[in-house]
């Protein structure tokens, strides 16, 4: 008799627990996202969101990605629902996602609002800082019920960044020009997270005070700033010819000291845990520029 009551009580308690699992987090657009049960079918609508989901330990739960989702390699096996800027909603809905990781500036808001109208929970992934990246990993892990892995990944990332900060951020400043694109010539101002990477490494972004997030420039503007180091990103993984172009300006300090560096854009132009690797490379490059002063 006692056993029966105990069992019934335990069973009821379990049922209650299962019902009240509910988790709420706040996304990068400051919207609250609540799930009643952990997400098992995640749609990641940007290559960065896919990486964050995998980092959070929820990679196996990602059922939909978008084009250019090339990392980690397991992501390439997942069904694509079109390009981030134009989604195939039909295919996406048919995959029955129970959590959508949307990209505020990349996905068309009209299409995301259709998904919201259909009752799908939307979590906007739009990290602007190192702590945002860690926060997003933790949030996704919380929603997917993989907190242990998520916490570990977030902590590893933050520790790595802290290590770089203590190692480099107090070293002598290097005036740095980060080239986002070559034609038109583009860089970023101090509101961009790449600017934070430059500062982390003890560099100073020569265009930090531009009024626009991604200013478009001409060569003249760069020549006047006369940066000590030029770092190129770009679209492919080999863009040496962007840097070769700067060699035609022998008066440029960066050219004189051969401080023309390439950092693979996939490691730095996506706000994901891989940014740590990119930051390491950038810090080493800027340190090399310091050594070349003598």
């Amino acid at each position, binding site marked *: 008799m006692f056993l029966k009551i105990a069992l019934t009580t335990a069973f009821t308690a379990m049922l209650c627990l299962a019902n009240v699992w509910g988790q709420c987090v706040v996304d990068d657009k400051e919207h609250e996202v609540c799930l009643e049960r952990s997400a098992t079918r995640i749609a990641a609508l940007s290559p960065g969101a896919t990486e964050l989901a995998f980092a959070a330990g929820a990679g196996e739960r990602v059922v939909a990605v978008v084009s250019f989702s090339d990392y980690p390699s397991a992501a390439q096996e997942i069904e694509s629902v079109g*390009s981030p800027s134009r*989604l195939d909603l039909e*295919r996406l809905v*048919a995959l029955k996602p129970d959590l959508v990781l949307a990209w505020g500036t990349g996905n068309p808001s009209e299409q995301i609002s259709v998904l919201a109208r*259909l009752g799908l929970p939307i979590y906007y992934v739009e990290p602007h800082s190192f702590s945002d990246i860690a926060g997003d990993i933790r949030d996704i892990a919380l929603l997917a019920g993989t907190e242990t892995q998520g916490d570990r990944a977030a902590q590893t990332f933050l520790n790595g960044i802290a290590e770089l900060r203590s190692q480099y951020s107090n070293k002598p400043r290097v005036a740095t020009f980060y080239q986002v694109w070559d034609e038109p010539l583009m860089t970023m101002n101090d509101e961009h997270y790449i600017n934070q990477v430059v500062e982390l490494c003890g560099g100073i972004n020569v265009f930090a005070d531009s009024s626009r997030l991604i200013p*478009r420039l001409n060569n003249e503007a760069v020549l006047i700033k006369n940066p000590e180091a030029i770092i190129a990103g770009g679209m492919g993984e080999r863009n040496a010819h962007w840097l070769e172009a700067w060699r035609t300006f022998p008066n440029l300090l960066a050219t004189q000291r051969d401080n023309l560096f390439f950092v693979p854009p996939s490691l730095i132009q996506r706000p994901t845990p891989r940014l740590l690797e990119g930051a390491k490379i950038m810090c080493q490059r800027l340190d090399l520029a310091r050594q070349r002063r003598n």
Partner: protein
Amino acid sequence: MLHRSPSMPLILLVFVSCATLLFSITQGSVSLSITDVSSALRSQGSQLYQTLVWELRIPRVAAAFATGALLSMAGALMQILLRNPLADPYVLGISGGASVMVLGAILVGASGIILSGAAFLGATLSSLLVFGLSQRSGQTTPMRLLLTGVVIAAGWGACITLILAIAPPQKIPGMLFWLMGDLAYAHSPWLAWVVLAMVSMLVMPFAKSLNVLARGPLQAAALGVNVVFLERFVFILASLMTAIAVTTAGSVGFVGLVIPHMMRLILGNDQRLILPASALSGGCLVTFADTIARTVIAPEQLPVGVITALIGVPTFLFLLNKGRM
């Protein structure tokens, strides 16, 4: 060209339109069988299929048809008003005005219903500007209207280029898709259908007078048509239709120019026939083109304007070559 029964082509076109609409509802990047679709249409069967059909396919197909119908009818009216075969709904800068407003709105971070509002505002503003500037002592000649419109359109074109040049890179894809015309962004087809029905009812009683006007204002006036009133009336209706089409789907090109010409080549130049026939066949073309755009290389989606041109250009050249013009 004489037809024994003048309504015969229209009946045929209504039939083709229904077939196109049904065909488009059955097609998508997720393949549903005819039975799946028909049970979803009766709100039976799988919840997922009902969502796909009712929430995604039907609104988009309806928006596509209404956009095509509005643009084709607006094109037919503009060609009569300006007495110029090259006229299309955009020739007077209406889409340019809408584009500048929408791109400006995207630039400052607006989205959703505000973009539709901006498109409508821009289209209305542009048509008022063209109409106001082309007036001289209360009179408007088609030539003056056309030139004013073309120059204003060029001005808007410069503004569009300027906005594209200064826009942040991450906003450019959205802007380009809007400029190319894209039904992925269509919110709701209802406004377009209401305007289509309203304008059709308003314009059809004047179809006979439009036949006379197409021969020239002097002849029309001699035959007792109030030319000034009719021209203004046509201008307002065509502008309204273009504004709504652009608001629904961005500037989908080509349809408004070619469909009315195609209909004239096949059916002769009787506006009582041409206007409804243009609306129906324009609707079919855009609906069919959009079905291809969203399925042909799915999951990647194409802008509908590309497909309308790819289908329309050879068809039009074929008809032209057969030689009734």
